[in-house]
């Protein structure tokens, strides 16, 4: 907000120049500096390309940006049409933000929620509640998303959202008769009461629409094609792949869940 009466009309010295500058003049003086273009380009590089910044690329971006008089659209077009944007080392190099992760799952399998607050609980457990950044500088991102507990929640998120939200204190169904199941349910309620908050992810009641996904998978799709469709170009580690049962005609859902649960799916 510009408060005319509070504005000091006197001379100021900015970057070695003296004059009765307005606020707009100061912004112009900043934009005149190439460093401003470099600074913004570096932020964009880190957000869209890789946490590990290649300063040579940043400098090329800054040239385009500066010479176009700060045309953001032009810069983004340059970025997305550059060959190096699609370098294998820039693919799957970033850790997805929690919202990227959840949105990605939703795009693959449509999900509806019985109770939408559940999504907020999930966002908080994962460390990114939308519209509530930790401070004015926003989410730190990258490795900051990951700690022991957030990683466990993240890895479980696909099976929680897409497989009817089974969580920590889980009775071993096959070992219990009906009476045992009742006792276990009662016990779980008690545990939840004692802990106050209850298991963090217990409140999410999601309804995945697997039918539409399974219908949309082409009949002749091979295992490799399905992997690259779900994980994009990220390679599944051979060790993990050998642990997953091969794709058959009848296990598409299980196979997709295995892929979404792999640490590789956390990357984008």
């Amino acid at each position, binding site marked *: 907000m510009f408060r005319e009466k509070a504005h000091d009309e006197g001379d100021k010295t900015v970057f070695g120049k003296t004059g009765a500058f307005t606020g707009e003049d100061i912004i112009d003086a900043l934009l005149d500096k190439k460093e401003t273009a470099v600074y913004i380009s570096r932020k964009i590089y880190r957000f869209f390309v890789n*946490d590990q910044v290649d300063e040579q690329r940043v400098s090329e971006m800054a040239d385009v940006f500066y010479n176009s008089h700060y045309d953001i659209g032009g810069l983004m077009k340059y970025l997305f049409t550059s060959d190096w944007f699609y370098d294998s080392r820039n693919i*799957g*190099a*970033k*850790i997805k933000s929690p919202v990227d992760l959840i949105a990605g799952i939703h795009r693959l399998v449509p999900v509806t929620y019985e109770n939408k607050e559940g999504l907020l609980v999930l966002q*908080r*457990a994962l*460390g990114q509640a939308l519209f509530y950044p*930790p*401070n*004015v*500088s926003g989410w*730190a991102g*990258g*490795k*900051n998303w*990951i*700690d*022991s*507990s*957030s*990683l*466990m929640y993240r*890895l*479980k998120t696909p*099976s929680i959202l897409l*497989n*009817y939200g*089974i969580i*920590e*204190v*889980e009775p*071993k*169904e*096959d070992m219990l008769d009906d009476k045992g199941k009742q006792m276990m349910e009662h016990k779980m309620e008690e545990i939840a009461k*004692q*802990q*106050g*908050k209850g298991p*963090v992810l217990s409140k999410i009641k999601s309804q995945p629409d697997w039918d539409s996904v399974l219908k949309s998978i082409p009949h002749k799709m091979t295992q490799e094609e399905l992997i690259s469709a779900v994980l994009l170009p990220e390679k599944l*580690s051979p*060790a*993990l792949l*050998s*642990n*997953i*049962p091969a794709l058959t005609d009848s*296990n598409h*859902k*299980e196979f997709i*869940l*295995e892929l979404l*649960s*792999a*640490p*590789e799916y*956390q*990357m984008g």
Partner: protein
Amino acid sequence: MNRRNFIKTSSLASGALFLPSFLKAFEYKRLPAGGKVLVVIQLGGGNDGLNTVIPFENDLYYNKRKTLSIPKTEVLGLTDQLGLNPGLKSFKDIYDQGWMTILNSVGYPNPDRSHFRSMDIWQSASDAKEYLSTGWIGRYLDSSCGGCDKAYNAIEVDDTLSLAMKGNTKKAIAVRDVNRLYKTTRDPFFEQIANATKPDMLTEDNLGYLYKTMIETYSSAEYISTTSKIFESKATYPDSGFSKQLKMISGLIQSGLQTKVYYVSLGGFDTHVGQKGTQERLLKTWSEGVSAFLNDLKAGGKLDDTLVMTFSEFGRRVEQNASNGTDHGTANNLFLFGGKLNKKGFYNEAPDLSDLDQGDIKYKIDFRNVYADVIKNWLDVDEESILNQKFPSLGLI
């Protein structure tokens, strides 16, 4: 198809525990005798310090708090000027034993009245105008805290991790319940990933970092669970969730777990409305839990190796509001507990209620001076590298 069946179709459904061989490199050492432990207790919401430690001879206090002040007759006197809230009865004995230090007027320059921001400032040990994405205990872990390099070197008793516990390269582990953590990580799904992890996958890039964190959580859960069985506290604690958390910490300390810092929170102190009963109840929960904890450690011979620090993100305004409550303020008191305190009782004088900053208590001690003391004299690490500035220590411990 439910998930159990889904898991069954994958290779490892037996649940039989077997660690990939390279994980055996994780050695299970116990904390050496005399190994010092820090327990941080966070009182969330902004505890009203002026009704915690009460200046019962000060007319200004009674004038500003017409309906909220604690009558002199109810105050548990410690000195001829200062005494405790009636909810803190169990601290009287702790005070008399010399296991308690109270610091008055602890804060920081340009105080922020937002819970979130002020808590971030306390947890990251930043200036009011500085935004750090790491916490002070996290940076202590980063500094390899005198030789430790495991997630379990710092434990937060909660489901998720606070900023205070996150470093740049190392982070603490959140453990609300030892058995639950163990069970969660032994879910066939995690075992499957842990077992599929090969050493060449623990690369320096982001994906390698995920695998490293995964493996570390998996093996930390095993270490904590195994070690915790060595000692189970038999002491009697009050019946509260907070006390259960302290009892768990006591058990872990007395088991010799190689954990240097424990972090636990008690919330609900944001008493804008009808403060008196709420605060007294919370102070009772806090003090009875801490007293049981200290006595338990004393009996186990661990009190001299343990330092407890309690803080809140801010104090409250000196003058009460119209709803029999108090609003967000600034400087506050901070409590230390332990068997090896240098300054027993009060460290400094009560806040000067005749010299306020727009109705708020002026800070006399920067909280980072207290941290400096704890880091340097208790955790034995260079404090400047963690606080990024020189803060003279106060000789508290």
